[in-house]
């Protein structure tokens, strides 16, 4: 595909509109936007209360642990938003119809990212509401630092989502079962629930390559009243931006391979249950 300096907003909107139509007509798609995040908040909310009662310390479990779960869930939803929007084309064997139009690869990716942004923000809103109403989690505990936290996790989720769809495009729909657990595989190294220092030194190097690690370290530092080093947040943003570019590069390479090998047409002919 040729490079275009400017994306056509109508074609990006078409991908978003397709996704919104799907949500409008299907309770089975809408309910998971609310249900799983609500269950997560309730489960971890009670867990947090229990830990707070058990520990008898001044440590603020609600903003530290429940907040971490909320942020991690948000990043997971972003990734799943991208992959789910992509899978809609896989499941409906729509690749040929889509890529025979004037849409460019970057417009298609932008449409998927926009779809994911909308659905994951809905999830974030629900989580904030439930965690606030039921367990007293307030974003005021984090201050304005919450915004760059969200941005880093948004970019990280997008990078993971783009990488995941590149894997599926390259290896076929069966690779679906490989990509869904990616967040779970990363979570031990992203230090969502415990400080970076808990990990063995060698694993800490790997953890430092993951932008979410900086978010969760920062979150705990802010909750403990230690403040946050701006350079660490800058590094997280830089890393997340680099991963977005890397993921896009991987997808572009896989897409080129798909065009050369006929994968796009084969996807349209393949029955995917």
């Amino acid at each position, binding site marked *: 595909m040729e490079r275009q300096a400017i994306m056509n907003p109508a074609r990006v909107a*078409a991908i978003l509109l397709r996704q919104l139509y799907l949500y409008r*007509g299907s309770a089975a798609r809408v309910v998971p936007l609310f249900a799983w995040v609500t269950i997560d908040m309730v489960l971890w909310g009670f867990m947090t209360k229990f830990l707070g009662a058990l520990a008898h310390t001044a440590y603020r479990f609600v903003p530290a642990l429940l907040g971490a779960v909320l942020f991690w869930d948000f990043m997971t939803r972003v990734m799943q938003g991208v992959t789910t929007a992509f899978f809609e084309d896989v499941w409906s064997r729509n690749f040929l119809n889509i890529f025979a139009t004037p849409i460019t690869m970057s417009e298609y990716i932008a449409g998927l990212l926009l779809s994911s942004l909308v659905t994951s923000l809905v999830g974030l809103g629900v989580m904030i509401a439930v965690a606030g109403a039921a367990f007293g989690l307030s974003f005021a505990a984090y201050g304005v630092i919450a915004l760059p936290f969200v941005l880093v996790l948004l970019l990280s989720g997008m990078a993971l989502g783009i990488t995941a769809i590149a894997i599926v495009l390259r290896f076929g729909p069966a690779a679906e079962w490989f990509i869904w657990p990616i967040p779970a595989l990363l979570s031990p190294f992203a230090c969502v629930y415990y400080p970076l220092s808990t990990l063995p030194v060698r694993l800490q190097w790997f953890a430092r390559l993951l932008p979410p690690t900086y978010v969760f370290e920062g979150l705990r530092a802010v909750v403990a009243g230690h403040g946050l080093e701006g350079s660490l947040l800058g590094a997280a943003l830089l890393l997340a931006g680099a991963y977005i570019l890397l993921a896009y590069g991987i997808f572009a390479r896989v897409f080129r391979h798909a065009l050369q090998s006929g994968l796009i047409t084969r996807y349209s002919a393949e029955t995917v249950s």
Partner: protein
Amino acid sequence: MTLPRPLAPQPLSADPPVLRVENLRKHYGQVEAIKGISFQVFPGEIVGLLGVNGAGKTTTISMLLGVLEPTSGSIELSSVNLLRHRSQALAGTNFAAVYAPLPGNLTVYQNLRVFALLYGVQDFAARLQSVLNAFDLHRFRDAKCGVLSSGEQTRVGLAKAMLNRPRVLLLDEPTASIDPASAREIRTTIRRFAAQAHSGVLWTSHNMYEVEEVCSRVLFLSQGEIVLEGDPRKLPSEYGKPTLEDLFIHVTSQPPDGEQRWSVKPS
């Protein structure tokens, strides 16, 4: 005997071709699926692309749609090079194929709305009415495509294919799952569209009656090569066969053996 050279295309107008294919090749590893084919389609012309299963028709159409990269050769859609200016070239192109139904979980209206945005259709409301009328789809406007019969889904696919008034329309067996009465209406609609919109149509079909009725020219594709080209109403008698179907069976059933691919002599 050696193969007779394909006839030169007979333009229906002085306009340049809407589709120009030059020495198009596609290799899959050592396998040469398309072996350097060249042809043109002119405005208002409906050209049949004929061949047995596996002859290379769908591979050719996939390359014309920009979803399969040729190994070499060039494709111009409305004088725009597809490989260099993909978006611009595809804006004036569209297609329908039995193996590419529109998503069944969207309604007819929703599908057409989404594809109108993708193709940059400006006057969507008017175009919607026009294509719904043309393919008798008004009563299915708000029905999900997945609940429609295969024939109705084919008509929705054709409606999508005409949404952007394409200069180049690629139809891969467009009437394969349609009853004879509807198929006749569809043939009439597409012929009218090609004439009025001055569009060129490339049409694949295994129904030789349909090809004779609709196409002004046919290309016989066999094992990735165009082996014969001409007027479907004249070709059978020119090659001593009673019908186009007989000629098709004869041309496509001969095993390749170097220079002598088939043994029909022009009479």
